[in-house]
């Protein structure tokens, strides 16, 4: 134990207790303590996993990184064949008593593979080949997850390459530039801006501006501009090809009033729950929104709405500080370690925690799409809880070996 690991574990402990209490609060009326007890069990398994993993030498983990990544890809492919899930999706392996969600495992596996790749190819700098390969490492699992379909996890895994490339010293402007095809999609598909003509105009202005600012190499400019225009041209068609409920979830962001009782219903109800908590909240177990089944998945995706309703502004900000402290500490370890693989690994874990916090809390507040990403260490969920604690195990192991090269 030390000045870094100890406070991290204390905060993780507090956050987990808050999670269990909130899960209990949102489920006890209908289900008694079934969910809370199960979550305690998951946390226990997670802590055991953390302890075991923290004793494994990271050099071993590094050697196995691609193998783990390969196994994760196989599982993702397999779940498409024999998996089960709600509404005809294929997200879980169902073992009767417990279910395993390979997309959660894919998050850590992808981080490992990326960390290994980026740490071994440092000499390549920000060459296009390195970027493309890094993106490919994330794109493969992301596409498989998208096919389940699980948009939230797919996007999360798909974007992992960017914070990791940023960590390897790549210029943020360049990384934003790489995302141009996605901006092209958002702006020209008619999702964010109803008029596609206006969307195109905005996009062209953006593209010209960033090209001027960045002064990128010609090959990259040709590639990115070409891809962006291609995506822009087919965006509308691609968009319509998505499942209706996936479209609605994204649309719900931009058209909240129109969809008040459709896809935006949950987000609005969640916001009413949080808002009605006011400064100090309605008291633990005292929430009223939750008992009526107004906000769905209140023990999983919308767990933060219960925290907001029952503990108010003070409680919400406190839990937010604790959660961000966890990611801060993980990034802190990334800054301390000398080995590049350890560095990228910690950076990836920190990113995934931070991104999930932002997207999940944002979704509860109605400012990010309803994507089904859990709130780290708080939401109910076996695979997610165990994988996150395992990640902490990796970070502790990296910290222990921080002086190694």
């Amino acid at each position, binding site marked *: 134990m030390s000045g870094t690991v100890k406070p991290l574990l204390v905060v993780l402990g507090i956050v987990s207790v808050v999670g269990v209490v909130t899960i209990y609060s949102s489920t006890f009326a*209908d289900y008694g303590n079934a969910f809370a007890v199960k979550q305690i069990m998951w946390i226990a398994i997670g802590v055991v996993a953390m302890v075991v993993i923290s004793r494994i030498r990271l050099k071993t983990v590094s050697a196995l990184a691609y193998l783990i990544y390969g196994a994760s890809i196989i599982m993702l492919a397999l779940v498409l064949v024999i998996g089960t899930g709600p509404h005809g999706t294929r997200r879980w392996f169902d073992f009767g008593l417990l279910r395993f969600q390979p997309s959660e495992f894919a998050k850590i596996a992808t981080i490992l593979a990326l960390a290994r790749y980026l740490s071994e190819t440092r000499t390549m700098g920000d060459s296009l080949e390195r970027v493309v390969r890094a993106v490919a490492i994330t794109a493969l699992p992301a596409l498989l997850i998208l096919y389940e379909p699980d948009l939230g996890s797919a996007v999360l895994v798909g974007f992992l390459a960017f914070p990791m490339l940023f960590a390897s010293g790549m210029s943020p402007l360049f990384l934003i530039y790489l995302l141009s095809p996605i901006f092209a999609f958002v702006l020209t598909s008619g999702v964010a801006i109803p008029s596609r003509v206006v969307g195109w105009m905005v996009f062209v202005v953006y593209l010209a501006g960033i090209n001027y600012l960045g002064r990128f190499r010609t090959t990259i400019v040709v590639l990115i501009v070409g891809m962006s225009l291609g995506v822009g041209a087919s965006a509308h068609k691609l968009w319509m090809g998505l499942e209706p409920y996936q479209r609605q979830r994204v649309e719900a962001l931009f058209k909240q009033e129109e969809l008040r009782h459709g896809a935006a219903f949950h987000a609005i109800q969640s916001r009413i729950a949080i808002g009605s908590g*006011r400064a100090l909240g309605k008291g633990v177990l005292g929430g*009223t929104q939750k008992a009526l089944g107004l906000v769905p998945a209140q023990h999983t995706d919308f767990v933060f709405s219960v925290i907001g309703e029952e503990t108010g*502004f003070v409680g919400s900000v406190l839990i937010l500080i604790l959660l961000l402290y966890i990611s801060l500490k993980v990034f802190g370890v990334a800054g301390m370690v000398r080995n590049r693989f350890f560095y990228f690994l910690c950076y990836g874990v920190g990113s995934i925690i931070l991104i999930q916090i932002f997207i999940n809390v944002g979704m509860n*507040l109605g400012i990010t799409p309803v994507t089904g990403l859990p709130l780290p260490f708080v939401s109910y969920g076996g695979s997610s809880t165990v994988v996150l604690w395992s990640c902490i195990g990796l970070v502790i192991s990296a910290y222990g070996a921080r002086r190694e090269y």
Partner: protein
Amino acid sequence: MVIIGVVFAVLVTFLFKYQIIEGAQFEVESKKNYVIKVPLKAARGEIVDTDGKVLVGSRQSFSICAVPKTTLKNKDEIALLAKLLEVDEEFIVGKLSKTASSYRPAVVRRDVDFATLSVIEEMSADLSDVLVVAEPVRSYPGGESFCHLLGYVGEVTQDEVARNPTRYASGDLIGRGGVEKRYDDVLSGTEGYKLVRVSMDGDEVPIDYEDVPSVSPEPGKRVRLCARSDLQTLADSLLAGRRGCAIVLGVRTGEVLALSSNPVFDPSLFATGISSADWKNIIEDRDKPLLNRAIQCAYPPASTYKIVTAAVGLETRLVMESTRYKPCSGSYRFGRRVFKCWKEEGHGSSNLVRGITVSCDVYFYQLGERMDLEDFYSYSTLWGIPEPTHIDIPNEVRGLVPNSEWYDRTYGKGKWTKGIMLNIAIGQGEVLVTPLSMLCFICGIANDGKYPVPHCVKTIGNDGDETEMTPEFIDMPMSDTTIGILKKAMRNAVEGEEGTGKAARVDGYEVAGKTGTAQNPHGDDHAWFVCYAPCDDPEIGVCVMVENAGHGGSVAAPIAGRLLRQYFATREGELVAGR
């Protein structure tokens, strides 16, 4: 650092906006925002016989539900409801307090008649936490016939809800036995819901159904059984007044064409959750009507097991078709004990085939005396006899074929003698099998070593969307020579002059079978008969087992004969119609 700061700033800004600046406004919204999720129950899928005749259907019923959280605080409302439903107040409190702090409506009374219903609707102003929920419940046009195949429904327990909270809600009716249980996930359908808005203290606020989403229930799928109503009702009537079972199985398909177990029970008693008085009656009935005797009781198989003993002898080259032992004089002396043959005057000298045909005990005592207990055990197990058949209805029990380890454990090392081998060789002693398992073994022989896994369900799904269940077979390692000898012997047992199963003969078809008469210490003998037909190209297997009824040849074989004749009569009818 910077990014974390930005994330924090953005989220706190929005929290501040909603909770501090606009908090009061949201609080008002949340207060008028009490919406109850009223479940829309899905109708369970129909269960039909092989020709599509409905055996179990659904009818609409109305249940009185109440919101536990608000109702329990309102004494007047409970008193009024109790009066209208003619129950005690404690009864209502009891129903609601299982989920006392929930707003999810709990069922107070199922299947309420129209008179009561209209009074409750009229008094709805005083019963603001009470809801009438339409709920489809089971109806049984097929009556008690098929009851053991179908099973019944019952209220889900608190434990089951806790274990699978996303699937069940308190008060749900789920499959409890038979096909209802095994195929519960396809039969149950998906519950829908509508949201009804009420104010915080339970007064209804004008409801605008349009502005809240509702989800329609999705009815369960239809399940078609393999069973034929003509065979099933015939089997029921042949067993009426007795304790026992009759099974008709497709040799080449594993389809359960009839499975009758007597006495029967009335599944409609369970349709709306069984009353404790009815339950007590059923449970305390000494004949145990809920028991499916074809799969849930293991009996001494008696002489039907001679087929197995003979097979073990042949496979271990201990005996050949022509092997003769000491002639039967009506009894056999082993050490100081005398083992009797069922026929006092004796059978004289027999070879193996005649030994089976006339069911000579003395022949099998001598075969058993030479047989190794471990061979007897391991071959029986290899052929799946003490194992469950894996039929697609639940709660199947295992049989028992003992080995020396079992005897050591049960009686103590050295406390048992080779004498047991003589007894179990004729299917007495400790050997126990279920009627279905015995039948499957016989069908496996008829099917040249392919053991059919029995299945009750033929297809799942509604018209035009039916998925067919594929027949499954398990390889039964047994040589062709052995199978040939056993087939010949079983044919002789019915068609031969000396056969014990002559009562199962069918005009125009050759039947192969084996009788059994199981002695048991608790009363009269159990009568057994297993058979298949036609001999040259087997189509169906039949097993009849009647408790405490006497001889297999005179009690069970005639019942099997009637079932065979019914099967072949309709088959000929089909052939004629086909031409």
